[in-house]
């Protein structure tokens, strides 16, 4: 093994000087959440960096719904799950159909629709939330899961269509032409040629839509209010309503709530990084 030169040591030291603060900065809020989840209340509130008696008791309370704030935990978890899955499926359906229509079938006016969708993508979500709330009221959908599902599909679709259109523009036209020669109908091309080739982008977009819906707070808290209709993030926000909130339970529930998206993100990271960063900003 060769002995590093002074210059190499200096470079490494400088990199560490950046790396260590980056690590601490990244981990502090997450570690703090984890710390609360494994601490009894007294330890959590005494500012210790590691509890004297680490425990899983908080998780037990959450899973057995043994607290006023947690009495609908499973229902709310299920709501989050159903809404996220529905948004994923609907977005995939709507966006794939639209991207196929614009990119492969060259439907008249497709370019205009693409630009309208892009325009929606750039409206800040919190601005659209205000008229959306009233609109859902007019449609009679407030406090109904459909309100949140449709709102999230509206928000997820533009980006989904755009990424899928970019990806499908890259597929060679000859594929479609060859299929038409062989007598394939449009639907057969869609099902047998287009969908299989688009799989990686579809995985990325499905994941994107599911995570977007699972993580959404603002729309969920505006559109749903009944305790048995709300999603987990809204329930977490409701913890703050009391002055003596059980923060250790709030953090435990938050930890449980944060695990699925983190797992999904890391599982599909390969697709996400390729598909989404390329799509997010084209230089």
């Amino acid at each position: 093994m060769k002995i590093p030169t002074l210059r190499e040591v200096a470079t490494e030291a400088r990199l560490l000087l950046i790396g260590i603060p980056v690590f601490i900065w990244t981990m502090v809020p997450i570690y703090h959440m984890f710390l609360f989840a494994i601490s009894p209340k007294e330890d959590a509130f005494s500012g210790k960096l590691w509890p004297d008696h680490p425990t899983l008791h908080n998780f037990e309370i959450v899973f057995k719904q043994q607290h006023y704030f947690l009495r609908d935990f499973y229902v709310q978890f299920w709501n989050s799950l159903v809404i996220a899955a529905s948004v994923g499926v609907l977005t995939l359906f709507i966006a794939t159909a639209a991207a196929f229509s614009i990119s492969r079938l060259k439907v008249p006016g497709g370019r205009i629709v693409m630009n309208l969708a892009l325009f929606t993508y750039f409206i800040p979500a919190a601005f659209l939330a205000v008229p959306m709330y009233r609109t859902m009221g007019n449609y009679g959908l407030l406090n109904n899961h459909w309100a949140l599902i449709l709102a999230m599909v509206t928000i997820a679709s533009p980006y989904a269509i755009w990424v899928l259109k970019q990806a499908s523009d890259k597929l060679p036209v000859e594929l479609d032409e060859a299929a038409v020669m062989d007598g394939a109908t449009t639907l057969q091309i869609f099902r047998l040629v287009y969908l299989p080739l688009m799989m990686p982008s579809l995985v990325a977009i499905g994941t994107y839509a599911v995570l977007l819906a699972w993580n959404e707070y603002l729309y969920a808290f505006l559109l749903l209010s009944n305790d048995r209709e709300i999603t987990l993030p809204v329930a977490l926000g409701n913890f703050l309503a009391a002055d003596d909130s059980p923060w250790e339970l709030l953090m435990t529930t938050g930890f449980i709530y944060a695990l699925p998206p983190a797992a999904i993100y890391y599982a599909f990271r390969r697709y996400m990084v390729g598909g989404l960063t390329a799509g997010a900003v084209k230089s």
Partner: protein
Amino acid sequence: MAITLSGDHAILSPPLSSRLTPAQVWGIVLLAPYLLVFLAFVVYPVCYGLWLARAPANYVALYNDPIFARAAVNTLIFLVIGINIKMLIALFLSGFFAQQRTWIKWLSVIFILPWAVPSIPTILSVRFMLNPEWGVINHLIFSFTGDDGPNWLNDPTVALTMAIAVHIWKSLPFWTLILITGRLAISHDLFEAAEVDGASWWQKFRFITWPSMQTLYITCTLLSMIWTLGDFNSVYLLTGGGPADLTHVLATLGIRYLRLDQLSLAMASIVCAMPFVLPLVYFMMKRLSR
């Protein structure tokens, strides 16, 4: 729902179908679900909202509301200072993460966590850390100095700074990731040639890295500004707009008016932001729809 709509189209289209190829008919049918969503949940709400905000009295009321002026200033601070700091850090870190080291690879996997986890629990976690009585930060300050720490979120300047910090914490990984992609696209030969010529670190950045990345960097900055206008969580979950409604940004102010049942004021405050938003949106669309 989408299927019934497709059916309607098939019925409505006979006079057209003589002029359209089957592929084009399918094109319209497949585009219909999105168009329906767009009409029902974008066009209708936006038009309805604009109609609600039409009365000039709303704008007079906004002008007379000190909270609105404060929120507008806060939003500007958030965008102009916060985003530029974030993007500069992201630019710097993209250089760091582009280094070929095993431990830096691992660090980059951890670094992405804030982006991968939902913002609600982590923002609430920060909120408790800043709690003046029980938060870990003031506990540490007390054990090191013997003095009570400040009441962080009770000072509007500090509270807004913390909201910006939370925003940076959350979205820094995403922008760093994109800038890393940009950096890795630069040909390595350029750096080797510069190395041979004895270029300094700054010269390499100034004459190689920056010229090839500036378009991407500026695009990212503008895009981040547009999106940050809609960042409701960082402010609402950390400060709730307080103390005394002094840390609102336009995103939380609109929702505040909405909760106070002043929908037309909420819409008017959003309309006021449009002169700043629309040029940015126009610019971004020109870039992305090429």
